[in-house]
């Protein structure tokens, strides 16, 4: 890269992705190796195999898939909406997934049938996506998408409150609240198989819009004049987010801030290029969620934290930092 005088050197795109992929792979291995049954890949013998296959492997796989989905969807939405504060929950699918899961608990389905929870989440996410597309239309601008997402989220939140309010059974209410906090624990490989293919399909859709997002840096007219199909881009963003984040939320509950934080932190390293930020945030999101999950396991003897709570605890101060940074940039 030939940088002009006074310019920050721009990391080559390949080395950035290699470093992030290495970090994600390392975090994945650590996630497999750390747990209450000790360090290493489980105790020897059959118990070790069972712990590895039934507990650690699904947890690490879900951590990587869900973190990757959240980071990637966050980067895609920030690029499409050209707003660094956009995050996956903005388009309403996580709200829809949460509502679906809450209804599965409320109607007692989850008590009879273990997969009612993730299935309810998937159906909720799909309904939310259809509602958002129906509301926002195929050809509108980014603003209509945000408004439609907010409207659908508001409806989902209202119905979740209603379900909590009407809940006859305090245990069901507690279960709903805990589910919404997000968790990677006690998930099986079956759940990985249920959500994994949908998450990967959604990721593929989101990764396909890199060029379009680069071109959108110059606004919609300039992007269209560079040959970008804006309608296809919008569909790929909405469907990709719904599939990846919807499926992720359906199995883990709501995990906030990863989709906001990761693209934001990685953007300077990607030379602010929205296209390159997509794979970078996918790898970075996977690494971040895996590390957060390992931290949870390490503090588990003292305090039982849910991962959605931890990401919120890290993410909220980040907002304070953003405010202070923006204020100092605007100061004379």
């Amino acid at each position, binding site marked *: 890269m*030939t*940088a*002009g*005088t*006074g*310019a920050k050197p*721009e990391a080559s795109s390949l080395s950035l992705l290699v470093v992030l992929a290495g970090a994600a792979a390392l975090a994945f291995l650590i996630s497999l190796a750390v747990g209450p049954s000790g360090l290493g890949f489980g105790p020897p013998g059959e118990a070790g195999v069972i712990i590895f296959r039934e507990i650690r492997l699904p947890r690490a796989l879900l951590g990587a898939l869900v973190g990757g989905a959240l980071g990637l969807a966050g980067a895609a939405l920030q690029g499409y909406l*050209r707003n660094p504060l956009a995050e996956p929950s903005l388009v309403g699918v996580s709200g829809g997934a949460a509502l679906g899961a809450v209804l599965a608990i409320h109607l007692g389905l989850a008590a009879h049938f273990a997969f009612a929870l993730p299935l309810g989440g998937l159906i909720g996410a799909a309904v939310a996506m259809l509602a958002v597309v129906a509301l926002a239309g195929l050809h509108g601008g980014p603003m209509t998408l945000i408004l439609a997402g907010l409207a659908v989220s508001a409806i989902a939140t209202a119905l979740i409150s209603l379900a909590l309010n009407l809940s006859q059974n305090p245990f069901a209410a507690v279960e709903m609240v805990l589910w919404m906090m997000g968790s990677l624990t006690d998930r099986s490989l079956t759940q990985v198989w249920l959500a994994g293919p949908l998450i990967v399909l959604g990721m593929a859709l989101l990764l396909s819009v890199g*060029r379009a997002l*680069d*071109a*959108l*840096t*110059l*606004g919609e*007219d*300039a992007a*269209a*004049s*560079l*040959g*970008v*199909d804006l309608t296809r881009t919008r569909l790929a963003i909405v469907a990709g987010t719904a599939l990846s984040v919807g499926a992720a939320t359906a199995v883990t509950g709501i995990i906030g801030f990863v989709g906001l934080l990761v693209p934001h932190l990685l*953007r300077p390293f990607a*030379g*602010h*290029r*929205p296209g390159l930020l997509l794979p970078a945030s996918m790898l970075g999101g996977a690494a971040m969620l895996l590390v957060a999950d390992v931290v949870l396991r390490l503090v588990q003897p003292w305090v039982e934290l849910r991962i959605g709570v931890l990401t919120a605890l890290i993410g909220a101060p980040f907002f304070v930092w953003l405010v202070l940074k923006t204020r100092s940039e605007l100061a004379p």
Partner: protein
Amino acid sequence: MRLEARNLHVRLGARPALAGLDFAARPGEMTAVIGPNGAGKTTLLRVLAGLLPPAAGAASLDGRPVAKWPAQELARALAYLPQERLVHWALSARRVVALGRLPYQPLGAGESAADARAIDSALTAMDVTHLQGRPVLEMSGGERARVLVARALAQDPRVLLADEPAAGLDPAHQLTLFGHFTALAAAGRTVVVALHDLSLAARFCHSIVLMQAGRVAAAGTPRDVLTSEHLAAVYGVKARHVEIEGVSVVLPLEVLP
């Protein structure tokens, strides 16, 4: 490539933005689109670029309606430089100019040697090579404008549609910019510029389309169009079209009552 439009009608909200407008721009020429605020210049350029489907009529490039061109092929033939100088992320100037090469890059391919050459020569043409590593968001308005023109030049278009490309540029860079546009036209390209600066239109353009309320008020050579009568009728100003040291200048003198 010949760029034409017949009987264009466009409504923006309740207001008719174009009302039965005919347009033609020939290769080898620079054509100015002029007219007061709200005359429909930007709307016309957007229709010509295929960005806005007209309610009636059609724009065509080389005899083929722009809506029928495959997007990628159209993007290689025609570059559109919007009036708003949007750059949403802190990309370096070189990265912004490199976006002009997107229509030439197969999916997943990086920058080729030909891309790098086109980017370098566009940066040089707009005198921004020394700024190429700097984020565009940190530049002055005029510097940013030049980087964005370089983006359109890097696209190596046979047809260039530029909406107010000279606004906010200092005199030296205005002359350089129009020098390059003139060279493009001389090389057989079709150049269309929407302009407020009537002197630039008089001096550099081969033909002028004077618009008023979505219609053509006058079209032809600068001498035919930039008459005191037309300027009084369309702009409501008393103006004189004079020559100073062989250079055409249009001087608005006062607003007519």
